[in-house]
């Protein structure tokens, strides 16, 4: 079936009724494998498709989706979107963006070898991840959800402003939890790897990471409450970056929901902190030639050497602010209209190795895992998490630590970043966020 033609058809029908229209098609395949104790536990294999129509009538928006591409269903979808646009609220800033020039550069986001790879090979990969974790130490007794995942999608986007484009994208990921036990102690740690290309993934590294961290955290106990330095691993720092990014979205700012409101042009972080949103990062998991509204992707320096320089925009917030969209409209699935979200959002790496950062700490906590559900608040700027890791004295690892909380206002944390490592890593969990190892001074550690 010709998706572009079908999309153009709907767009012109809607345009004839005086509406702006945008049609999105997504067609793909995915494979997911879970292994346990050397055997395949679950294997799922499927084709996936979906389409979504966005209609804007005098600044009021309606959206409808379906997974059924039959003419009747497609027709019904755009008509429901049209009806919804009639009952919504008008907003003069709502509208589709004008088409822009898409650069021809290859972003390397498609790996054709994934579709060619036999299932058996993918199973073997997952099994190797598990073996690497179990083999790391005999105290690693189990793994949980040891998973291999890949998908292969084609996106088509057409709108009534004259935009028409498509691209292919692959993603491959593997992860697991390793569980360590010794006597009464249990600990669990994550190992994860993800890329657009199969060749970038290393089963040994993923399994070993999980195994090593589970062993390192085994037997953790609280330390006395105190103020001290912390060193965040890239995984932990990425979580902080994730929440920080939410305070740097123009929609949140325009609604007054950001602790960084009104700070544009100010020094909001230590001068070794630079934050970048880069929709054109080569092999970036969130890279694409254009965003969910057809705006060409780009790189945006959000914080430059500590100074707040820009926030992230889609075409709606940009029009409201009298600026250009930064190409930050994304789509979670065909079931939702585009929304403003970071692309590949990361803290730029520095020069120091993680080892050099750790050995410079006189007294502090190397944080390997944090748990939060709302304790990091981009609105109030509060940061409060439960943490696990290893205690450091005079640059040396001491005992494992568990059951402590870390707390500080985020604007203070940003100012107190005193080292940035060279080991940038991306964690694709709630988006694509990355960070190297970082050191932050003056954190409140609440323990015993």
């Amino acid at each position, binding site marked *: 079936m010709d998706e572009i033609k079908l999309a153009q058809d709907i767009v012109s029908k809607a345009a004839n009724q005086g509406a702006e229209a945008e049609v999105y098609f997504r067609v793909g395949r995915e494979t997911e494998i879970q292994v*346990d104790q050397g055997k395949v536990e679950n294997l799922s294999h*499927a084709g996936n498709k979906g389409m979504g129509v966005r209609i804007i009538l005098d600044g009021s928006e309606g959206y409808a989706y379906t997974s059924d591409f039959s003419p009747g269903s497609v027709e019904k979808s755009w008509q429901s979107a049209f009806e919804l646009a009639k009952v919504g609220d008008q907003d003069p800033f709502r509208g589709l963006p004008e088409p822009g020039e898409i650069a021809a550069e290859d972003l390397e986001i498609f790996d054709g070898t994934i579709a060619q790879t036999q299932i058996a090979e993918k199973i073997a990969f997952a099994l190797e991840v598990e073996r690497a974790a179990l083999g790391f130490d005999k105290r690693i007794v189990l793994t949980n959800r040891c998973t291999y995942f890949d998908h292969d999608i084609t996106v088509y986007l057409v709108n009534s402003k004259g935009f028409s484009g498509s691209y292919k994208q692959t993603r491959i990921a593997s992860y697991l939890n390793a569980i360590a036990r010794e006597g009464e102690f249990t600990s669990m740690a994550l190992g994860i790897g993800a890329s657009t290309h199969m060749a970038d993934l290393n089963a040994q590294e993923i399994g070993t990471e999980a195994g090593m961290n589970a062993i390192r955290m085994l037997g953790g106990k609280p330390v006395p409450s105190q103020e001290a330095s912390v060193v965040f691993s890239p995984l932990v720092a990425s979580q902080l970056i994730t929440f920080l990014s939410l305070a740097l979205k123009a929609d949140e700012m325009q609604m007054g929901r950001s602790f960084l409101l009104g700070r544009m042009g100010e020094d909001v972080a230590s001068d070794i902190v630079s934050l970048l949103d880069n929709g054109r990062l080569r092999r970036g998991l969130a890279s694409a030639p254009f965003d969910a509204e057809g705006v060409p992707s780009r790189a945006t320096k959000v914080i430059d050497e500590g100074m707040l320089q820009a926030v992230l925009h889609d075409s709606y917030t940009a029009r409201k602010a009298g600026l250009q969209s930064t190409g930050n409209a994304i789509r979670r699935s065909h079931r939702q*209209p585009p929304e403003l979200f970071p692309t590949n959002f990361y803290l730029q790496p520095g020069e120091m190795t993680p080892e050099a950062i750790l050995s410079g700490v006189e007294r502090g906590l190397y944080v390997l895992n944090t748990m939060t559900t709302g304790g990091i608040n981009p609105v109030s700027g509060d940061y409060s998490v439960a943490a696990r890791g290893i205690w450091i004295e005079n640059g040396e690892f001491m005992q494992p630590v568990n059951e402590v909380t870390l707390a500080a206002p985020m604007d203070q944390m940003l100012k107190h970043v005193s080292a940035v490592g060279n080991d940038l890593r991306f964690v694709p969990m709630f988006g694509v966020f990355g960070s190297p190892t970082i050191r932050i001074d003056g954190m409140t550690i609440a323990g015993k």
Partner: protein
Amino acid sequence: MIPTEIARKILDEGLKRGGDLSEVYIEDRETFNLDLDDGKIERAVRGNDRGGGVRVFYQDTTAYAYTDDLEEIALLEAARAASEASKSTAEGRILVDLTKRENPVDVGVKTPFSTLDEKSKVDLLHQMDEVARKQSSYVSSVNISMEEVHRAVWVYNSEGVWAEDDRNFLEFTIGVTAKKNGTLQRSYSGIGAQSGLELLESQSPLVLAEEVAKAAVRMLDARPAPAGEMTVVITNGWGGVLFHEACGHALEADFVAKGTSIYSGLVGEQVASPIVTAIDDGTIPKRRGSLRFDDEGTPSSRTVLIEKGILKDYIWDLKEARRAGRDSTGNGRRETFRHMPMPRMTNTYIDVGTHDPEEIIRSVKHGFFAKQLGGGQADFARGDFVFTVTEGYLIEDGRVTVPVRGATLMGNGPQALKQIDMIGTDFALDSGRGRCGKGQWARVSVGQPTVRVPKLMVGGTDREIGGQIGA
């Protein structure tokens, strides 16, 4: 959705290469969502997703293939893919005759919400917005969402199961941000049930808007939360989310069977304080987590997990139950046809106790009252948990006094369960906002009476107060 004859053909295809069990799952889902932000409808979405999946069990391997095409040929292709992937080598099995199952659980809808026109729904959200804003001039931002889901499922399996369920969910959520002298405070809650228009008779979205706005404003004057170990009293209703996260997941049979759960092998043992009884019950009429049948066609049931502190049973799906040679408890759930089922909670709660809730507060000299919990996270291998308290108060000399903000509760679920020393008479289920994530989302309810835990870690930023209480 598909004739039973076609279901039989697909089941047959799934077993051709000799799997132990084949299953067909068909789903048709319609959704309608409205989001109102800053006084305007920001998003109005309607849609339909449907598809089917075929699962084949062979020894310890489960293979699954799904398709968003419900034509016979696509489903047969999925069955073939699942059957091949299961790597089974045994002889083909004989299909048992399909018999339609009945289950009387009342999750029916009186007046479908879809009978209300779109304009009226938009107006209702605007009214909620107005109510929230008029509570205080400090209210700076309001966002409101409404979700309506109709989900019809059909399940057939080669052992004769034929079950159909029809589920209707309606939900309103609201977040309010209040601002005063540079301090921002956000409060969030929701109501929902398996219900149609009649939801509005028992739970008012306007009252919800008022309560959430008032809570956000109240917390503006809150002091920083204390840090340290103290006696904690947890509110009834939504407070049960703590049990759900920190203990409930560890009672799910997949974690138990693997040995990753702290509760593995402990049936019959004392795992909680003798005053604790905990139950998972998918048969409560109209509740968010209730089901006539789970997504494997097993009738939903009431399972006593812990009785007077003794571990009685786990939460089972078909796969784990078959491995253990027992019956499923009707807890095999999946997010959509794109997902494989796994053991999930339905409506899970700590049962009613004997203490007057006011007496529980009076019993605390210095402590912390967690009135509204945010989300939570727990490590099921150890049961360690962390929860954000979006509305918390100090308890001083037996009275609830000043509001405190930025608090987190942390500790170990199984240990806290052993310590619980007072349980109130004020049992309640939550207002219907629960959404549980375990790689897949599922609607759930949680509940409990007021509960007292003599010692729990409160994480906050105010060390001075923490020092006093700790001492």
